[in-house]
Every structure is written in C-alpha cells, then in structure tokens.
C-alpha cells in the first residue's frame, strides 16, 4: 500500500520533469526513455519503501565489457547492468551496506560501504589506475546544496584506468590534475559544455571527448569518466539529482544613491569630470601662486 502511494507520487513528479524538456527533445528521446524506464522499474520500486530510513544509493557500472548483476546486502537490485549505466536510487538504511557485483555466477567485486544517515551516495564499480588491476569500488557523497535558478551543480569523477588528468571545459582547464578515485565539483550556469579529458599538464593525447555535456538548471549532474584509453573503452556515466533552489532573479534596476551628496564628486571614465578635475588643479595652482605672492609681499 505504501508502495502504491509513493510510486503515484513518483509519477506525478516525473511528469513535471518531462515538462521542462523542450518538445522536440521529448519526441526524440521518449522511445529511449520508455525503454530505460522499464529497465529501471525494479530500482524505482525498491527506492520508496526503503527511503524512510533516509539514505539513497546510486550504483554506477564502470567496468568495460561487463554486464553486472548488482546486489545490496545480498538482495539483487539490478541485473545485467551494462557499462557506463547508473542504476538507482535504492533506498537503504544508514550504516554499513554490502555491495556485490556479479557477472553470471562469478563475483567480480564485493565491498562494504558506509552510508551516512540521510546521505545520497554514488557507488562506482570501476577499474583502478592500472588497467590490469582488480576492480575497485569508490563512493562519492552527493552534495545536494541549493543553487540559483539558472545554474546547476556539476561533479566530475575520475574512475578510469589512466593517470592524473586535466578536465577541459569549453577548451579551458577548469579542473586540474584529477587522479583515479578523485572528483571535483562546481556550480555552473545551465548550458551545454564541451568537455574533454587530457593527461594532466598536457593537451594531448585526448583521453576522452570533447563531448557535449548538458548541465540542467536546478540539477546536480554527476559525470564519471570510466574505461581504459589504451583499449579505447573510455566513456562516461551520467546521473542527475534535483537540487533545491536559492537566490533571486536578475535585477532590472539598482538604485544606490538616494541623497545626491556624491553628485559633485569626480567621476571615473568621464571626460567632463577629467576636465573639471583639471580646472580644479589649475585653480588650486593659481591660489597657491597667489598665496606665495602674498607671503612674499608680507615679508617685505
């Protein structure tokens, strides 16, 4: 019963989310959305029932060439998760949770992750720096701080089998020297950015991209760079979470003078003011000359 009411709420919210997407995009994306929504149905069903306990887990499959079954505390929550796919949120109780990823009957990796009360946590299954190393699990806490209406949060994580990297945004190094397991975050204007990843301190070879990264206003977009450039398996996993809103709209007017007393002061960048200033100097010089003359006269 609880499940039914919460999933009803979920549907209402998702209509809102769709309505913010331009119509043309909806037409192009809807078949895909339907497909992935069906695939994600188990995730959705799991989430509301457990959400009362306060923590949400998202799981990112960052291992190239694998299709993984994911379980939390021994309970399967998603099956056949392809590379660069994110599943969740899964509502879990705070505390230590066991994450297991299997391919068929083989356990690929099993790790215990610590989940804070009320946390939103991304659990990433990925390669270490060494392409031949055993898979690792890295967790990233989602900061769900409010952003202004026209901005979004962005967090880029390095979960690829490659050394430290610079992340170029619109051709400029915006995030420098990020190593495997590290991430960087920022609040940026909502827009589509050209993002590329290059070795730290170099401009080539390009590890990934440049690719178009849309940052939606009012959402935290998490980007996970996964794969191995030498095997040409580099790609990104993406996920978004709605953020609260802060701040007010753009002002049309700024009134910062109500007395008029400053109207006589010099004004920068105005030739009239400069001329006035020059006249003041001339007048002062004249007065000074006059004063000197007077003193001289008095001395005589």
């Amino acid at each position: 019963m609880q499940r039914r009411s919460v999933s009803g709420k979920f549907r209402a919210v998702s209509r809102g989310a769709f309505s913010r997407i331009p119509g043309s995009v909806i037409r192009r994306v809807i078949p895909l959305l339907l497909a992935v929504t069906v695939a994600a149905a188990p995730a959705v069903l799991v989430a509301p029932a457990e959400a009362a306990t306060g923590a949400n887990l998202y799981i990112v499959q960052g291992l190239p060439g694998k299709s993984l079954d994911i379980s939390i505390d021994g309970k399967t929550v998603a099956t056949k998760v392809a590379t660069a796919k994110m599943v969740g949120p899964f509502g879990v109780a705070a505390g230590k949770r066991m994450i297991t990823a299997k391919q068929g009957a083989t356990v690929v990796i099993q790790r215990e992750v610590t989940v804070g009360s009320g946390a939103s946590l991304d659990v990433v299954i990925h390669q270490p720096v060494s392409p031949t190393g055993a898979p690792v699990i890295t967790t990233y806490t989602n900061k769900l701080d409010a952003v202004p209406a026209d901005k979004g949060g962005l967090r880029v994580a390095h979960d690829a089998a490659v050394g430290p990297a610079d992340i170029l945004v619109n051709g400029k190094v915006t995030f420098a020297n990020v190593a495997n397991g590290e991430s960087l975050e920022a609040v940026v204007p909502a827009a589509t950015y050209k993002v590329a990843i290059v070795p730290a301190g170099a401009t080539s070879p390009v590890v990934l991209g440049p690719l178009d990264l849309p940052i939606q206003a009012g959402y935290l977009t998490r980007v996970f760079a996964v794969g191995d450039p030498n095997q040409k398996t580099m790609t990104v996993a993406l996920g978004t979470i709605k953020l609260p809103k802060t701040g007010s709209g753009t002002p049309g007017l700024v009134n910062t003078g109500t007395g008029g007393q400053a109207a006589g002061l010099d004004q920068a960048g105005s030739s009239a003011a400069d001329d006035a200033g020059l006249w003041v100097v001339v007048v002062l010089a004249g007065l000074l000359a006059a004063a000197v003359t007077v003193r001289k006269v008095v001395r005589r």
Partner: protein
Amino acid sequence: MLGVLLLCCVGLEGCSAQADGAVPGSGTDGGAPTPAPSSSPAVPGFSAQITPTIPPGPAGAASAPPGRIGRPAPSQRIRFIPTQVVLPGGAHAPVLPASTVAGQLQVPEGAHRVGWWDGGAEAGDPFGSVVLAGHVDTKTEGIGFFSRLKRIRAGETVVLHGAGHTASYRVGSIVSVPKNALATKSGAFAQMVGHRLVLITCTGAYDASRGGYEDNLVVTATAVGQAK
C-alpha cells in the same frame, strides 16, 4: 551517438532521481529494512524492499574490505559567499546577501554596507559575475562606502573575504551606463562568462524628481588566481 547516450542517461536519472527529493518522512520500522513477503513481489524477481540475507556480525559471510571513499582532487575550487569587501587602499565594508524584489535589487540599508546579489556567482566559482552593489550616498547618512568607486583605477586590486576564505580581483574596466540599461546592456549580471567581480553604484547627474542618479557606475574586475 554520445549525445544520444547523454540525453538518455539524463532523462532516466532526471526522473528516477526524483525519489531523492521525495523521501517520505514517516519512518515505519525504526530504520531497519523490513522483510518483504516473498510470495508477492510486484515485479517477478524483485521485491519492494532490500532485505539483508547475509546476517551481520562476525559469524556471517558479510566480511568484505571497505570500498574506497572518493576524495576531492587537490585542485578543488573553494567557493564562498562574500561577507566583506576590501577596496584598493584598504577601506573595507561588510557585505550582506541582497535579493531582487519586483525587479529591483534590495541593497542593504546603511551607507556603509554593501549587498551581494544572491542570484549571481559566489566568489571562487569557475563562471559568472559576483555582483556587489553599494550606496554612493543616502539621504540620512551622506556619502556612502561605494563613492570610493569613483576613484578606483584599472589594475588596482579588490579583495573579498568570507567563511575564512579570500578571493582577489584586478580591476579591468570602469564604465558608467544609464540606469535603465544596466541589466540589458552592461552585462553586469551575466553568468555565462568567465569568473569576475562586478561592483555597482550610482553616478551621473542627480535629480530627485527623476529617480535620483541617472547612471550606474560599473566596475569589472577579473579573478587573480583561485579563491583560497
């Protein structure tokens, strides 16, 4: 191809992620996962709850190494809401958040206080204008703190402080624009620009019967390094 992938992922997460914001407040069982009746899963193969099947404690099979905890890279930017502005020469003033109400920025009362527009960038952001507006004068207090902007010169440094952090900016341009063109023509509030500081006050001729000063003075300064 990648574009499709991106859109697809964003679409999916944009809706499924809603559950994050829709966490029901009513806890049912004090936080422990509730066992689901195994006979009635809504979707074959999936039950509504995650039920631990591995018993906790040393006797269980639940021992596994801990996962790594992702760290911020050393180059993680610091961002902060400014609470103090220091102008060239060392004169400083408190900065308070200021909102737009009915299209007008509500600069804090007091000739010696400065407002930070709460819809703009914070100090240290990679993009966008940090907008500060302050009084050139007030009826009751006379000359205001930002009257100093009339003497500011390109190349001088303005410093912001807040939450124990510091950001420095070098003055690039000083222009006056008609007050009604500030938002539309000056770009003072632009966010889709490189990170910068924009200081605003009033200037030009003063005519109380025509809304006071006719112009805004706009000082634009670019970031010197990252916030510390």
